């Protein structure tokens, strides 16, 4: 306990590299939680995580329903992977995930980014993945401050009491 008080987390730099609902929201919830605690926060989106800051995709994220052993049916029975290949199942499961989060006041991705930015959080895109996916600056949502290199990310993450978290 004394340790915690002596060395508080002052800054977090979160890397979001995957684009499923749960991967993106895990990072966004940690980022929002950080700014709510007065912790400086930088968010770095890379690879499929870029979907979360791509205007056309950010509110259409999906949860993987094939090969997800933790997946359950409503009621708790195991969810057979073969069900996941039926058209519409992924969309239905994803809609349900979003609905259940909204019930807890966890908003859609664009609004969640609004909240994080309102609290002083900063959003960045990874240059390498941005180039690889052939994105244009106008494809990215207005929350994005800049498209940056890994080197720049480490500079931004630097500081005493700073943590880098890969989600």
């Amino acid at each position: 306990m004394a340790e915690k008080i002596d060395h508080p987390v002052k800054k977090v730099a979160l890397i979001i590299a995957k684009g499923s609902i749960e991967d993106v929201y895990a990072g966004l919830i940690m980022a929002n939680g950080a700014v709510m605690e007065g912790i400086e926060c930088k968010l770095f989106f890379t690879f499929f995580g870029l979907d979360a800051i791509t205007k056309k995709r950010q509110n259409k994220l999906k949860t993987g329903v094939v090969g997800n052993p933790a997946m359950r049916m409503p009621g708790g029975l195991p969810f057979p992977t073969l069900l996941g290949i039926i058209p519409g199942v992924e969309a239905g499961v994803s809609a349900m995930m979003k609905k259940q989060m909204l019930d807890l006041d966890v908003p859609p991705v664009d609004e969640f980014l609004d909240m994080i930015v309102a609290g002083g959080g900063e959003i960045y895109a990874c240059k390498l993945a941005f180039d690889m996916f052939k994105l244009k600056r106008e494809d990215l949502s207005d929350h994005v401050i800049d498209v940056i290199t890994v080197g720049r990310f480490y500079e931004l993450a630097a500081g005493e009491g700073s943590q880098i978290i890969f989600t």
Partner: protein
Amino acid sequence: MATKTYAGINVDVNDEGYLTNPAQWTKEIAQEIAREEGINLTDKHFQVLEYLRDQYSKGSVLTIRGVGKSGITDIKGLYELFPGGPLKKSSRIAGIPKPTSCV
């Protein structure tokens, strides 16, 4: 349980300084807790505090999104009113328990 004196009134507080009995809260107490947090309360602050107390008394889960949709202030405004702890500090000043929500 600890007690603390704010504005000449003894109130019960927990080890994090949150009032344990919201009924003991007064505006004068709020002013003194706010001073400890480095905040000077304005009318806008009090509107937020009243909103939080009202929601708490109804048993609602408090979130910054909820405050942002209350019509009192947007989320950016809430951060400006209570820097470094939009929900945590406002709840303490409002004399209600520390929020248990992650958003």
